[in-house]
């Protein structure tokens, strides 16, 4: 999947990237300050917003989780079942149970999802995506509301999911520890890609001064 995209809000360039390539089965972390274009890039990839440009060799089956993920006012189990067509719900009850167990949502199975904490809501939103195979997952700060223990567990499950299904995972994060789990890290600033490197290289020895400045801040 190769994206060339320009997105402008009013007079502000939110995103301006050219021929940004994502390979199948790899994990990518998007880092950068607030307003750097991480969320806009994910929205463009997910076709949530209109933009000038194109996506070449698009991945057909992509699922997107927004920054403020939403859990509908139905049970956690029914939220996860939304991933399937209504008529096929019964066939997938077992896989729903499995993903709830993996993400430690079992006890919340019948709880109304509108009463979940921020971290539990994010887990439910992730379970809704991970309950079935997708060729790509686009995740906007997927663990931002979780405690560290829950975040580590979810990260582990996401990596296993990506390996099992050869899924491309592109996620935005403010955690350099989390970014280090990706194959590649893309640093964005003011809508532009400043640097893109293998995670170990970019986090230990960034080439660009802007990237170094950002990473040193942590």
């Amino acid at each position, binding site marked *: 999947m190769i994206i060339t995209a320009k997105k402008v809000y009013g007079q502000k360039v939110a995103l301006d990237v050219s021929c940004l390539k994502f390979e199948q089965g790899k994990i990518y972390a998007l880092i950068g300050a607030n307003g750097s274009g991480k969320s806009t890039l994910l929205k463009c990839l997910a076709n949530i917003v209109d933009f000038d440009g194109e996506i070449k060799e698009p991945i057909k089956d992509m*699922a997107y*989780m*927004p920054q403020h993920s*939403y859990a*509908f006012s*139905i049970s956690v189990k029914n939220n996860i079942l939304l991933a399937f067509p209504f008529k096929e719900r019964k066939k997938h009850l077992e896989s729903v149970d499995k993903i709830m167990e993996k993400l430690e949502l079992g006890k919340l199975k019948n709880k109304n999802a509108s009463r979940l904490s921020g971290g539990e809501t994010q887990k439910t939103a992730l379970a809704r995506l991970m309950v079935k195979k997708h060729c790509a997952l686009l995740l906007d700060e997927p663990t931002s509301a979780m405690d560290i223990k829950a975040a580590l567990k979810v990260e582990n499950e996401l990596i296993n999911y990506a390996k099992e299904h050869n899924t491309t995972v592109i996620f935005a994060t403010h955690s350099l520890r989390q970014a280090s789990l990706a194959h590649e890290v893309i640093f964005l600033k003011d809508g532009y890609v400043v640097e893109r490197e293998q995670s170990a290289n970019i986090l230990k020895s960034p080439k660009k001064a802007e990237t170094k400045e950002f990473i040193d801040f942590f």
Partner: protein
Amino acid sequence: MGTTLTSAFKLIFSGSDMLTEIVLTTLKMAFSSSLLALLLGVPIGLLIAISNFKGKDAVVMLLRTFMGFPPVVAGIVIYVLFSGTGPFGKLGLIYSVELMIIAQVVLITPIVAGMTESSASAICQRFLDTAKGLKLGYGKVLALTVIECRYQLIAVYLFAFARAMSEVGAVQIVGGNILHKTRVMTTTIALNYNTGEFSYAVALGVVLMLIVVAVNLIASLLQKGTNK
């Protein structure tokens, strides 16, 4: 004032046949028209709220204009359409409760649609990205929007019912305020005011208020029930 109120309460507890008939006709008209307006207006409002199309702003503006449609004008238009010489005159609906219901539906549907659109638009913003990200179909999004907006929809229904109960202009014109046929509480109150029978008007006013309070109580219980 005291004498009027005493006479009014005496009338309520006397079990007057005419009073019962007027209250029942009013309830029939108000429940039927508010339910029909809800069935028509809610889907229109929800569809406008969750859709993005060219001219959406113009449609919303038109809808909001119709929300303020003057009842007397609606009454006259419907009267002309359904009177003996009108295009629907052959239906013989003029001066009937059915035509009063039609008039109420014409008046209330834009209000229901507009209020639904307004509240659903605000709530939809919170989950439309999630729905798009999951590639949920139109039907699922619509059903989820109803679930997420359930409190607002109950409030919309209450407003529609209260409007149907209290409207006087259009029902007076198309119903004709005929005794034992199309006489409802509001038209009776207006008539009794004109003839100086204040105790009857006050008695009907009290019953009108009690009905609205009862419907509000039921709606509150429903809201509490859906919150469990």
